[in-house]
């Protein structure tokens, strides 16, 4: 079932990523981690559908935020991140997905691992935790190309400074901040050992990012004795404008 959402705000997260806030009058509510399908229809009738994760925490005011990363040769993301304007209307289907979700009733340790724009559904979980005043122990390992590619930087900083907060570790793959102890590199066993929950605490792990990132993060978690049934993954492909 498709619903019409009206764009009520736009906010640039980085030079290539934009958060779009929609107001959807009959929005049924969502759970952190879910996504929506967005349908664009051209004047000649051609239509195309893309999936985007919801960035906002569940709320009761019918607002849905998506953060979209612009892909150089994308068909849809350049439009969403550069041309879409406040007041525009788009068709949305969802919320979708009941597996890659975090419910506020969950109290076990949570390990979040994000690669690039894979942070989006995990941010919904972090925001959901904050808005529900949950004290579930959260850790986030966030791998990005360079410091300027971090989404939600100030909000994450504020959350990590707070008591009973989310502990956040960054990993940089191309360029690091000045004097950063770890040279630019992909996530590896040392990083997993130093920054993620030990498996004897039986964390539930949520991994989101490009397919290859998800594969390697998942393999590392399993190598550290995390059960496969405790790992939930969401992948997006090279052409897949998100997913």
């Amino acid at each position: 079932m498709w619903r019409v959402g009206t764009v009520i705000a736009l906010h640039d997260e980085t030079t290539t990523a934009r958060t779009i806030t929609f107001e959807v009058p009959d929005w049924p509510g969502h759970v952190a981690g879910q996504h929506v399908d967005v349908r664009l229809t051209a004047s000649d009738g051609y239509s195309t559908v893309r999936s985007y994760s919801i960035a906002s925490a569940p709320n009761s005011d019918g607002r849905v935020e998506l953060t979209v990363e612009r892909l150089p040769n994308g068909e849809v993301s350049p439009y969403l991140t550069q041309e879409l304007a406040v007041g525009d209307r788009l068709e949305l289907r969802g919320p979708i997905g009941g597996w890659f979700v975090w419910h506020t009733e969950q109290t076990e340790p949570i390990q979040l691992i994000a690669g690039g724009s894979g942070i989006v559904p995990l941010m919904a979980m972090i925001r959901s935790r904050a808005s529900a005043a949950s004290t579930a122990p959260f850790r986030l390992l966030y791998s990005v190309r360079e410091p300027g590619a971090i989404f939600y930087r100030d909000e994450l900083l504020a959350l990590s400074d707070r008591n009973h907060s989310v502990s956040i570790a960054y990993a940089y793959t191309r360029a690091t901040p000045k004097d950063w102890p770890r040279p630019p590199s992909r996530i590896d066993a040392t990083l997993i050992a130093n920054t993620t929950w030990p498996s004897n605490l039986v964390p539930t792990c949520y991994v989101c990012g490009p397919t290859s990132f998800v594969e390697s993060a998942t393999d590392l978690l399993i190598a550290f004795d995390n059960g496969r049934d405790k790992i939930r993954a969401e992948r997006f492909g090279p052409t897949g404008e998100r997913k």
Partner: protein
Amino acid sequence: MSSHTYEYLDGNAAAGELSKIFTMDVTAAEGQCANCGAKRRFAEAHLYMQAPGVVARCAVCEHVLLRLVSARQRMFLDARGMTYLRLDM
């Protein structure tokens, strides 16, 4: 032996299309592979979207679990690769 080298997504990515058919969420549903017997959530299946439709394969043995093709006003669903799909009420 499969020789495909396409990058796959996961079962989550098919959920929007499958919501046209199923009223309940399919990603959290457990399915059993008709080939190797593995029982996994549909979200864990490997999903290939480069075809004219979507093809979900078993995460363990890569056997085809499900094919879904939309053609004009018709949808074709082939789920014979699963012995069952358990939808929790």
